[in-house]
């Protein structure tokens, strides 16, 4: 779906007039989530991109986590996300993606089978991180709703991709791939 910028934005491309305290707290939440380190980077990237595709966030779909790439999240691996059930992704990764889908669509309908799979493949700490990761990667919904998820400020390469890195404080940095 084509998507216009739906609110008044400033020179930085962000909506004007927002409550600065609310924006700041939400940013601090996101920073805290990405500082968590129980999950491996490849799982984190699969979860992030599944969220991006479910929400159709244009910026997020164009980004690739640098540490995940270095850990094996190649373009070939990431291409399996859309049809993951039929793919040769590991069962652990498939369970993670099932959890993403259930969380995003109907968390109240999470099956006993999926709960069992989740507990088999992930520790409680990993599961807690996975859940808050989904909320972090779902902040995209704000940008999609406001139409501020365009890629015009992202340094995309010829294949439409840029790299995403987080510093120790959790702040994001986007660079050319």
């Amino acid at each position, binding site marked *: 779906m084509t998507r216009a910028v739906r609110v008044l934005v400033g020179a930085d491309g962000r909506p004007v007039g927002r409550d600065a305290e*609310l924006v700041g707290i939400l940013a601090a939440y996101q920073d805290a989530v990405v500082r968590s380190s129980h999950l491996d980077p490849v799982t984190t990237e699969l979860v992030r991109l599944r969220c991006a595709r479910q929400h159709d966030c244009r910026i997020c779909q164009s980004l690739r986590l640098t540490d995940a790439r270095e850990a094996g999240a190649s373009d070939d691996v990431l291409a399996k996300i859309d049809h993951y059930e039929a793919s040769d992704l590991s069962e652990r990764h498939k369970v993670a993606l099932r959890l993403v889908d259930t969380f995003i669509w109907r968390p109240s309908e999470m099956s006993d089978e999926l709960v069992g799979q989740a507990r088999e493949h992930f520790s409680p700490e990993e599961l807690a991180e996975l859940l808050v990761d989904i909320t972090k990667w779902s902040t995209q919904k704000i940008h999609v709703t406001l139409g501020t998820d365009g890629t015009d400020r992202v340094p995309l390469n010829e294949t439409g991709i840029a790299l995403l890195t987080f510093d120790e404080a959790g702040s994001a940095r986007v660079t050319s791939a």
Partner: protein
Amino acid sequence: MALLDAAYARAVECIDPDLLALVTDRITVTLTDARPECSAESDRDRAVCSVVDQMLIDVAGLDDATVQAAARYFPDGEFADLVMASYIIEARTRLGIAAERLLGGVA
């Protein structure tokens, strides 16, 4: 999670309480099948509910006209605050449900 709670507390301070109650009710009903406690009675509220519903169900399907129909009631950035508040309420609700199933409580 504490920061998400803090974000919610700030949303309570800066969003019209009746509107926030409407949005909260809409999200809770949709995600938990609870009974609705308040309803959209004005054109503004109905427009807001249309956005909140689509954000909940499939944000990718939200079109420009639906958003702009609601945004026109909120000058000076208040609509963006409302959208952030809707996200925060939704995230807390989904997280609570999923964490209860997987971990027996708060993530």
